[in-house]
């Protein structure tokens, strides 16, 4: 019995110290991850300007990433425009400002909702797709196979996908904005009668160039972040088949988070520049 007692205190201490070491190792893991992501981004900028350029693959990815996302982005854009209009009408009606409906909805779609919702959907569809595709190519040694065919797999796979995502998302957002405004037009006409011409002239009167420019500019960053994070999680996946699902999942989580962070930064920067 006496021998048991001295053993006890160290046993109690162990969880405490492991707790700290777990926290420390989690923290160092986080910084390692950030560092390796930064290196990955650096490598992208190094390789993107270096010939030979993979134009064919870039075009193919633009088609797969951009064109194939049109239906999804279009449908959600329409629904958002419609719902937003229907939901906002009662509030405006209270102040007798129903005539402001097109302007209000139009501005919020173009400035904020169109870009962010499209980017989130893009992250879910394209970010996870890139993550899963590259991870499974890694597991099945396809990336190695490219390397022994004297192809730089980073350039062929990663650079083309990141570029395609960066270039396609802004176009998709413009498309989604247009469909969203049309959805809003339909929403307005459920209760009131506003002509197509009047509806859009109201919107364009309340919009300024300085609304449009930041709204479109930030979508390039959204697209870049989504493509880069998806590529990073896929290209660095190393855990066999289960890594494929994990890469897709991580890609969606972090690229969605990144969309909000960039959005917040963009708001700060534009308000600084406009004040």
């Amino acid at each position, binding site marked *: 019995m006496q021998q048991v007692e001295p053993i006890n205190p160290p046993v109690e201490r162990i969880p405490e110290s492991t707790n700290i070491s777990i926290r420390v190792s989690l923290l160092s893991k986080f910084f390692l991850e950030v560092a390796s992501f930064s290196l990955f981004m650096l490598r992208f900028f190094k390789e993107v300007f270096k010939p030979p350029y993979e134009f064919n693959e870039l075009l193919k990815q633009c088609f797969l990433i951009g064109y194939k996302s049109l239906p999804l982005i279009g449908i959600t854009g329409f629904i958002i425009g419609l719902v937003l209009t229907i939901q906002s009408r009662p509030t405006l009606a209270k102040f007798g400002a129903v005539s402001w409906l097109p302007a209000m909805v139009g501005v919020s779609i173009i400035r904020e909702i169109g870009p962010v919702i499209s980017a989130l959907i893009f992250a879910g569809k394209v970010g996870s797709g890139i993550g899963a595709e590259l991870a499974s190519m890694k597991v*099945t*040694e*396809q990336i*190695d*196979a490219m*390397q*022994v*065919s*004297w*192809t730089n797999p980073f350039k062929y796979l990663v650079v083309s996908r990141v570029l395609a995502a960066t270039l396609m998302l802004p176009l998709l957002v413009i498309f989604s904005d247009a469909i969203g405004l049309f959805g809003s037009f339909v929403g307005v006409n459920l209760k009131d009668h506003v002509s197509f011409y009047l509806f859009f002239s109201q919107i364009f009167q309340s919009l300024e160039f300085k609304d449009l420019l930041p709204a479109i500019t930030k979508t390039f960053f959204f697209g870049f972040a989504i493509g880069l994070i998806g590529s990073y999680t896929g290209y660095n996946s190393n855990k066999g088949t289960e890594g494929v699902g994990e890469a897709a999942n991580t890609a969606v989580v972090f690229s969605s988070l990144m969309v909000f962070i960039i959005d917040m930064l963009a708001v700060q920067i534009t308000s600084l520049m406009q004040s």
Partner: protein
Amino acid sequence: MNNNTTPPEIKKNEVHDNTTVVAMKHLKKSFGNNDVLKDITLQINKGESLVILGKSGTGKSVLIKCIVGLNVFDDGELSIFGQDISKISKPELIAVRKKIGFLFQSGALYDSMSVRENLEFPLKRQQQTIGDDEMDAMVKEALGNVGLSEAIDKKPSELSGGMRKRLGLARTLILKPEIMLYDEPTTGLDPITSKEISTLILDVQNKFQTTSIIITHDIECAKRTANRIIVLKEGVCFAEGSYTELENSGDSWIRSFFE
């Protein structure tokens, strides 16, 4: 076993040329604490076909991946065509690597491409200027060689395991490399297809004077193709010799590969 009495359809390549094509000296490779290759020294002459035997996980794949640069060895020397790999410039290295073909253990077929595109990929990469007609002819010839002509427009996912293996082989052979590294070319195939693949390997060997390294667990394939056999164990070359020498080895562990 009838095979012992009937001679193979294609005779093994007799090695007359004594130029060393691949030479390794004290090659070492470890992953963390796992010392996979401890001290590998070997030479392969032009036109020779070397079979590597060894238990699963002894580092056979790692060894041939070091030759193409997919794994970077930690220490030692590797020369290909008499050029020390770690001392030559990058363009020279690429020129050397262009002469090496690698058949992946898993096939490593491009899932997003059709069978035809899988074969076109290395062609387009090797010579940017190749014409469409020429490419088409080469693709069809390569597929014909492995008996896959009818699958040309399929996706790899629609092929059976054996067909995938043969497609992998076709994709590697299409460039007629001077050195061929085969990682388990016949594993998972029925005896008839295995035999066809072994024959194909010999065929390529004879036609193009290819130097080959063949990793295999298929002792029939080893018997058909090997000029020389090396047995890897615990990161070193444990034994070396011809098929008959090793088959009648005094070491029972080595003999166990041949049972």
